[in-house]
């Protein structure tokens, strides 16, 4: 198992993060939706929404368990695979890492209480227990993203004679990359979860259950999906402007913008063959508008950078995937909303419901593509401009072996969580559960 430990460390980190981000996204997004459903249920005095909260919470616990596990793994793997980076990170950016643990602890405690105390409190009091869960989940994402933002635009310290000096942990947290990164991560988590829940509801409707419960769930999640897609598009635009200002090499690589020019066009799609771009769509002045909201602005191209400091050009594909899916989801949810509003038939058409079914998985693909773009796009740096990935990696010879072990683990966890979730909901369909609560109450729940 001897090999290039730098390359292997990158592969293992990418593997862990790609797996973790699925569960982390669910972990950040779902509590908000449980809370909204629970709240709507109380407001409208509608048992269907209460049941929605209850069922989502049940599924949430399973994904949180895997998220906890993979989160612990990535937390420790950072030190195991990137000891050189963590030594510096410990000095400068340990504060948000530390606070993340608190946020997560807070979330875990109240989630445990919420799950095990249905009917032990009044509905309203029980809803209050969810607030710390949602806040804890969102704050975990915020703190971790602060660390990632620091890696992209490090500040809050100086290097004097090769040693760290004048460290200011607070300034290190509030980096230029922070605002756009945090809002992008949190809002896309909400958006992705909205489409995930919508795709489940649409799937049930297609598979013969015509229950009004699924219709309510679909309408609510699609409406929220639209809101968060619009927010995502706006924040995505700000992220582009951030890159143009502070990490022009990442933007240039993602857009295949080779030469610095004014009035730069935006390239969409296309392939790169022998250094030449083919089959792409060019939007005149597009990149200048994206980067500076000004069609004549000058955008820095890859010609301004040393060859060994240019990120891999294949991040263009990740970028296109992310943006295309984002736009598609925005379109689907907008069309759904308008169609519902004007009572167009299309909203209930089978093909349209299938489109919604695919929206959930697609949203997760977009999340993955986005993370790959930003992480690969920072290469060759682990700490932009200061420390390369190669300098930070472990010297251990056993990373290759660990890739195999962790791959097996993630496979088991992934399959296990899908099987368990499937079993929970198959065994206990909505109709059965509603009937149970009605018989308990001895009356009409509405």
């Amino acid at each position: 198992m001897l090999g290039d430990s730098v390359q292997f460390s990158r592969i293992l980190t990418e593997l862990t993060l790609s797996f973790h981000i699925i569960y982390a996204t669910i972990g950040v997004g779902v509590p908000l939706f449980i809370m909204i459903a629970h709240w709507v249920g109380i407001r409208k005095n509608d048992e269907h929404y209460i049941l929605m909260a209850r069922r989502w919470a049940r599924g949430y616990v399973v994904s949180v368990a895997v998220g906890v596990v993979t989160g612990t793994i990535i937390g420790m793997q950072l030190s195991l695979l990137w000891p050189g980076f963590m030594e510096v990170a410990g000095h400068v950016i340990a504060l948000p890492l530390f606070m993340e643990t608190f946020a997560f602890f807070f979330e875990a405690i109240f989630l445990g209480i919420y799950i095990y105390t249905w009917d032990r409190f009044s509905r309203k009091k029980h809803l209050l227990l969810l607030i710390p869960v949602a806040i804890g989940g969102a704050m975990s994402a915020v703190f971790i993203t602060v660390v990632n933002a620091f890696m992209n635009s490090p500040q809050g310290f100086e290097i004097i004679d090769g040693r760290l000096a004048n460290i200011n942990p607070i300034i290190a947290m509030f980096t230029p990359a922070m605002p756009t990164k945090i809002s992008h991560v949190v809002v896309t988590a909400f958006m992705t979860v909205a489409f995930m829940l919508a795709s489940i509801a649409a799937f049930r409707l297609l598979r013969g259950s015509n229950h009004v419960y699924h219709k309510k769930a679909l309408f609510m999640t699609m409406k929220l999906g639209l809101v968060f897609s619009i927010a995502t598009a706006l924040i995505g635009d700000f992220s582009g402007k951030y890159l143009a200002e502070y990490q022009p090499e990442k933007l240039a690589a993602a857009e295949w913008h080779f030469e610095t020019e004014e009035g730069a066009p935006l390239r969409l799609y296309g392939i790169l063959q022998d250094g030449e771009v083919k089959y792409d769509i060019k939007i005149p002045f597009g990149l200048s508008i994206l980067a500076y909201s000004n069609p004549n602005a000058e955008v820095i191209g890859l010609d301004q950078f040393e060859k060994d400091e240019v990120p891999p050009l294949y991040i263009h594909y990740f970028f296109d995937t992310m943006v295309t899916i984002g736009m598609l989801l925005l379109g689907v949810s907008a069309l759904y909303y308008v169609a519902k509003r004007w009572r167009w038939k299309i909203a209930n058409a089978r093909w349209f419901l299938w489109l919604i079914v695919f929206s959930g998985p697609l949203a997760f693909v977009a999340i993955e593509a986005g993370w790959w773009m930003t992480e690969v796009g920072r290469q060759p740096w682990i700490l932009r401009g200061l420390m390369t990935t190669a300098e930070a990696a472990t010297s251990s010879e056993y990373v290759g072996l660990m890739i195999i072990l962790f791959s097996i683990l993630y496979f088991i966890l992934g399959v296990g969580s899908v099987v368990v979730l499937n079993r929970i909901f198959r065994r206990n369909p909505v109709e059965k559960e509603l009937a149970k609560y009605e018989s308990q109450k001895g009356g009409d729940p509405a």
Partner: protein
Amino acid sequence: MTLELIGISVLWLFLFGYIIVGSIDFGAGFFNAYSHLTNKHHILTNIIQRYLSPVWEVTNVFLVFFFVGMVGFFPTSAFYYGTALLVPASLGLILLSIRGSYYAFETYGSRGHKGYSFMYGAAGLLIPASLSIVLTISEGGFISMVDGKPVLDYWGLFVSPLTWSIVVLSLAAVLYISAVFLTWYASKAGDEQATNLMRKYALIWAAPLIITATGIIVELRAHAPWHFDNILDLWWMFAISGVLFIGTVWLIWQRRNYGLAVVLLILQFAFAFYGYGISHFPYILHPYLSVEESFTNEAMAISLIVAFILGLCLLLPSLYLLFKLFLFNKDYVRGKEDKNHA
């Protein structure tokens, strides 16, 4: 008290918390699996499931706190231990993952799948074994510097009697701590059968615990004389720990006041664990890392401590609520409100 002393004391407190809470958790998993083997499953499962289900995530967080805190307060340790521990820590992580997924998969999926219970029980013993290796390594002698990078001597570690004594101690401690705790918990739940069974296990594991603990002190004399001398200077802490141990065993033996027995047990481990920690001072990794040299900068230390205090203000009331609802709520412990979970 200097900043680095505050830092290491806080971290040591978290590690201690993990050892107590984790031991209860790991041991319970083992007893659960063992009861499957001996057909005593009906006696234990309810007690174990009811205690563990709401608090398992909390256990894990203690460990995360510890290693995140280490990186924050002692960043250089991330470099040394990070490089050296890739294999043992990764194995520990994989085992932790198997356990972590157990509750979700088992509690919400198929209750009582035997194979998973065994894996879970076994993982509960292998985790303390793999994590305790860090304590062995910290005594020095297993890491050498090659081209400025720390390299772990796996074979030397594997054949060292010290390694195996610490592994055995960790196993005995896990089983003893959790047996004493579950004796109390079962008696509180009014489950006489389970109480008697756990009481028996507690008494059985008391002997190996005290024998290996004493044995390790003797072995340190040869392996790490500096540490042995420091331990002798702190003899009174270990003596108090020994007296508390006798107190716990006597109470369990007499079937009296199991609650007090748990308190004495925690104090016993606190004295021994702090005695061990203080005598290890000033080294985090002998001889490369000392507390003082590997300490972070002052600005980070102060901000970490402030964050820590603010965090505690948030967490302590929450933990109080959790324990009030589940651990100290008679109806819940006795299973009257078993149907409440979602």
